[in-house]
């Protein structure tokens, strides 16, 4: 469908703002649309009464960076009573070349009974967690939240070293010793 003839470079004029809507990889300045990345241009039409959207498919995707509301996959590196620090490894399904720092504060672990949350009973170092970015945070870390059913620990290892399987929304069981450990589990997705 796409060919090299559709390849564009940053700054290349793509059309008039009255003809297209600026999509990903493009920007509008004054009356014109320009490409902002190297790649192949694509025009997609959603409905007849809307303008077609112009997007540029990146040829060489830049490393993903966390954005507000993005779903990220991260690994817990440290826990303390106030928050769990994590390394963000994947943003919206795209891997990051370099890990970004994030924290899950105690009040962001779950949506209900926030005052009863104990970080130790929710995350342990080494757990893989699915979370949502709620704020760009401070100078160092992004602020993440797991306050939704499908967010929380998706993979963990028990004290004995076996992998954990979720048995309820706040319990996980070791496959080796059958010991139950407490976690804020993510609802398994089909």
């Amino acid at each position, binding site marked *: 469908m796409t060919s090299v003839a559709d390849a564009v470079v940053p*700054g290349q004029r793509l059309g008039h703002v009255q003809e297209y809507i600026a999509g990903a990889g493009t920007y509008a300045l004054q009356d014109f649309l320009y490409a902002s*990345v190297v790649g192949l241009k694509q025009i997609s039409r959603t409905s007849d009464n809307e303008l077609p959207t112009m997007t540029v498919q990146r040829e060489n995707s830049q490393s993903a960076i966390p954005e507000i509301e993005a779903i990220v996959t991260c690994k817990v590196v440290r826990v303390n009573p106030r928050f769990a620090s994590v390394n963000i490894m994947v943003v919206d399904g795209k891997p990051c070349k370099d890990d970004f720092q994030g924290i899950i504060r105690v009040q962001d672990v779950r949506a209900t009974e926030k005052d009863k949350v104990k970080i130790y009973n929710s995350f342990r170092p080494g757990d893989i967690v699915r979370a949502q970015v709620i704020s760009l945070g401070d100078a160092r870390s992004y602020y993440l939240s797991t306050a939704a059913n499908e967010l929380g620990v998706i993979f963990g290892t028990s004290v004995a070293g076996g992998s954990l399987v979720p048995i309820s929304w706040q319990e996980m069981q070791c496959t080796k010793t059958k010991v139950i450990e407490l976690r804020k589990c993510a609802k398994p997705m089909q």
Partner: protein
Amino acid sequence: MDRKRVAGPELSVAPLIEYPVDHKRWTPQQEKRHDSKRQPEDMRPIYLKTGLIGQASGSAYIELEKTKLACGVYGPKPVKRIGQTFSGRGLLTCEIKFATFSCAKRRNQMRDPQEKELSQILTQALSPAIRLDLLPKSAIEVYITVLESDGLGSCFSAAITAASVALAHAGIEMLDLVAGCSASYIQTGPARSISSGAESIPPQIFMDADLEEEKYEQGSIVLAYMPSLNEVTHVLQSGKAEGSIISQSVEHCVEACNKIYAVMHHALLESVKENQTQL
């Protein structure tokens, strides 16, 4: 000299030299350029290629005859520097390093004040083109290594060109590519005494001057320009010149930048083509 440690060769061989023995040093009195095939407004041919550094997010290599430099772009990645406050915009840092063997005089391994300043200028020249507002809390790092320098002006303008191509190659969102171009003002024609400077002939503008020509320059200009947005992102002029010469050389440089843009465009399309054939 310590003869024990510095053992000279027993045999000596005549050095390989580039020029015949009767070669005369170029002077502007010859009313021609150092490379006699070039007209004053001609640039050297440019070789530009992307993707030669595997580890980098994006990279470019540029060669203008004897000016050769490589550029690698890393990022966007988390800001690592401590003491950095929260910033809603991305942070661009550029570092230009002359290889120790790149100039006539050996350069120090430590960064000298000139390299620091050029790095700063490079940041100023590139940041108008990058959409840093889309990259909060992230850093982009641009590293340039000058392998061979044939004139500082051309070296610096090549650095700008290569860096912006490398940034585009890294997939970083940009408003436009930045092309860099240099020019020198050189007094040509027969030598005249400085005292009779009243009947001054305007100096010639030599685009993309090389080292030999730079030795005779009265002044020089480096211009960074975004061709499709029609904006100058940096200008650096040194030496004495009339206002008319400046405006003329700015126009020449803008024109040349448009030509360089075509080369940059081509190099990036080549990289797309290569990717397509691999698929």
